[in-house]
């Protein structure tokens, strides 16, 4: 069930009413039932996967929690005879056993993900290496949101192991955390500590929260249906025939894809966060106007924030602070390579993060290249920091210059869009060819001679896209200045409020690319 389908709207509407009619204590049970019903809609056979992950996570977390309980009881009973050293030794032995459970659960959970999502990629590459036939080895369809719930359970288990909170003892409550359906589709990736409080607490009906939630959903539908799904026709034309659509067309495709990716993903997130807000549940933000970023580093602080934080907490820090790597850095420092020693922990951690980010986005080499390029350029820009500092010292007014700021924003947008071409085209060689064509075959006339109308988008489509993008740009600009547009509208007189939101509703209703005749495109991030 796509979250832009009529069925979802009916499902969500019915759930919202039922939710506030249900006693607060039982609201989470209703959410669990709804989440499993939603999941079953996507394919009843997939229920097994999410259940297996939940069960494995539950058993491992209970075992880890049990060990902790046992340790506490042991210390309590033997507090008079245990000295500090004994306690330390005992703690280490408990931690070791907890780690064993953690590793077991992670291997199991990631094992499912690896086989389903990456099995064929690995087998086909090995086959290619030995010249064997390249047939799909695993004929398994990707269960809805498998990457998202696997990452979420991983975070839960690691935090538990780190002792950040106690395990959830109720299997069904844990099941809700794993399967909460709005975020199951494409995130955001939540942490147990924050989300569990929201999920399990009952919520009274709050008209303002519900209205704000529904308004955000509407804005999400606008981004997804009016912009992302409309631009899709042009994108499909260019990527479907990269040999014909080279040069300027590749450039147009690059810009279209950047727009599509953001509108599709952030639109979906708006729907998810908005619906959760209507239920009284606050989910973490996933975007902070990424195309206003002034650098690649800034961009990755604004784009898919929950995934980036996840990688930072569960990949970067464990690697860069691993005892072995720290020991190696110390050795280098002693040998007089202070700079290298300082860098090695960060560099290895960073490259690992970007390698995994690339792999997470898809089982294909172009995603891996995309990830490593991001990581590589981030490190490069870090290396160039002294140069920037010199430049700013030479021209002290430059950082405050509006023009310079705009140049940096445009530069970052174009650079990010360029990297995203690895995601847009079918494979890396086609992407490189398209990139080269953008330089060698660029023809400005394409923008003025009507050629763009051959991409499957009419003049009216371009007009709708332009106006819609202007609206999103204006709203984003307000948000960037710290102004809440919804709050501002809410402060207006009743008729103005009605006109604004009804106007947006009509835009979605009339200009949305949905229904028969349009390819009911799934969210791009569903596949992850």
């Amino acid at each position, binding site marked *: 069930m796509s979250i832009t389908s*009529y069925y979802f709207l009916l499902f969500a509407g019915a759930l919202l009413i039922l939710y506030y009619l249900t006693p607060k204590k039982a609201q989470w049970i209703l959410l669990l039932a709804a989440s499993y019903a939603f999941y079953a809609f996507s394919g009843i056979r997939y229920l097994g996967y999410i259940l297996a992950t939940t069960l494995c996570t539950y058993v491992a977390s209970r075992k880890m929690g049990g060990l902790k309980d046992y340790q506490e009881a042991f210390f309590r009973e033997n507090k008079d005879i245990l000295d500090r050293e004994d306690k330390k030794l005992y703690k280490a032995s408990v931690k070791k056993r907890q780690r064993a459970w953690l590793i077991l659960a992670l291997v199991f959970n990631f094992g499912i993900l690896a086989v389903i999502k990456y099995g064929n990629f690995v087998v086909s590459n090995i086959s290619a290496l030995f010249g064997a036939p390249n047939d799909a080895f695993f004929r398994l369809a990707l269960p809805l949101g498998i990457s998202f719930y696997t990452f979420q359970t991983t975070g839960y288990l690691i935090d538990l192991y780190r002792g950040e909170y106690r395990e959830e003892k109720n299997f069904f409550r844990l099941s809700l955390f794993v399967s909460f359906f709005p975020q199951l589709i494409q995130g955001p990736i939540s942490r147990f500590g924050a989300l569990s409080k929201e999920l399990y607490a009952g919520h009274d009906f709050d008209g303002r929260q519900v209205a704000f939630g529904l308004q955000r959903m509407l804005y999400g539908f606008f981004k997804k249906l009016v912009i992302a799904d409309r631009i899709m026709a042009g994108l499909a034309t260019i990527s479907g025939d990269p040999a014909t659509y080279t040069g300027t067309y590749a450039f147009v495709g690059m810009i279209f894809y950047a727009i599509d990716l953001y509108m599709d993903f952030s639109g979906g997130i708006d729907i998810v966060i908005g619906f959760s807000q209507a239920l009284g549940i606050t989910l973490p933000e996933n975007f902070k106007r990424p195309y206003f970023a002034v650098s690649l580093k800034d961009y990755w602080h604004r784009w898919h924030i929950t995934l980036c934080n996840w990688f930072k907490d569960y990949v970067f820090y464990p690697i860069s602070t691993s005892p072995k790597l720290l020991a190696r850095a110390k050795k280098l420092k002693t040998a007089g390579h202070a700079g290298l020693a300082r860098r090695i922990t960060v560099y290895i951690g960073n490259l690992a993060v970007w390698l995994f980010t690339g792999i997470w986005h898809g089982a294909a080499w172009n995603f891996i290249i995309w990830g490593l390029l991001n990581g590589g350029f981030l490190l490069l820009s870090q290396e160039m920091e002294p140069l920037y500092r010199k430049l700013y010292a030479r021209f002290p007014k430059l950082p405050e210059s509006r023009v310079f700021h705009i140049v940096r924003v445009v530069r970052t947008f174009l650079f990010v869009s360029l990297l995203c071409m690895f995601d847009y085209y079918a494979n890396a060689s086609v992407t490189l060819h398209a990139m080269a064509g953008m330089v060698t075959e660029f023809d400005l006339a394409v923008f003025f001679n009507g050629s763009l109308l051959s991409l499957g988008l*009419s003049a*009216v*489509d371009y007009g*709708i896209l332009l106006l819609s993008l202007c609206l999103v740009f204006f709203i984003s600009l307000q948000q960037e200045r710290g102004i809440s547009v919804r709050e501002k509208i809410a402060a207006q007189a*009743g*008729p103005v409020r*009605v006109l604004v939101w*009804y106007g947006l509703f*009509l835009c979605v*209703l*009339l*200009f*949305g*690319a*949905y*229904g*028969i*005749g*349009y390819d009911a495109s799934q969210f791009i991030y569903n596949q992850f």
Partner: protein
Amino acid sequence: MRAKKWLAVGVAALFILATLWLLQRLVMPKYMGDVVEGNFMAEYYDTEKDHDVIFIGDCEVYENFSPQVLWDEYGINSYIRGSAQQLASQSYYVLEDTLRYEKPDVVVFSVLAVPYNEPAKESYNRMTLDGMRWSKTKWDAIQTSMTEEEQLLEYIFPLLRYHSRITELTKDDFTYLFGRDLVSHNGYYMRVDARPAENVPDGRPLADYTIDAGQMEWLEKIRLLCEENGIKLVLVKAPSLYPYWYDEWEEQIAAYAESHGLPYINLLALKDAAGLDYRTDTYDGGLHLNLAGAEKLSRYFGAYLRETCGLADRRAESALAARWEENARWYDEDRIRQEYEIAAGE
């Protein structure tokens, strides 16, 4: 204060509903240009419903029989409830819908759709179903007809289906926003132009000539519905040269009719007796008859109806006669307009 608030909510709700209704009317296809068939189904509801004969089927009925001739020559008050590529299942529901309003003496059902069993197409579904008034029958007809990509909700709220037309609106969409011109003559689609039938291809051999049991089931349902309502059912095959009508199909339909004591007339086999000349009486090379052909066929078939179905001549009923006189004026106007357009080369 509270009353004022509720009043404001009421006004806002009214405003929203009114604009949605207006927009829905605006974007729905008007079928007033080259394709007018989408209007046939709805036009029925605006007529007086005391018909002697109702024709049910696809283009084989609405392009080949002229109710005006049946009235003028035999005093038979008839109406054609047909639409483009109307499936056998849809014909059943159209008949059921008709019976909500009247019980004719005779139902003439065109059998072409029974063996053809063409897959439903969204555009044709829409032309048949959008014009039907809401009832359980329409609901069932939609459920039975929908293609995989269609959604029931889009039939309930056609704005959801036609919203994309907002960028393709024409003058017609505004002209016919609140009402459309009559396009049929008691369901008959008049065409006066002529294109002779030449080199009509033979039917290509089929792997299996057996008519699908599911399709025969719809024919059986139509028969039972007529039987329950005391209506005489007449099966016809119109004299279209194409789509090809196979002998094997003819045998199966004839056998079915015989086994249930139903009259079945293959007008294709009787085309000479009806006086049809495919050099002058068809407007599209033998697929459908033009006005000249339809009038010839109606004269021939009207005689059959009067003789075998015992239909009374109602021309003496003054109110009815007055209605038909009005119909005749529009019939002549349409004919003259088309003849003028052909002469003017438009």
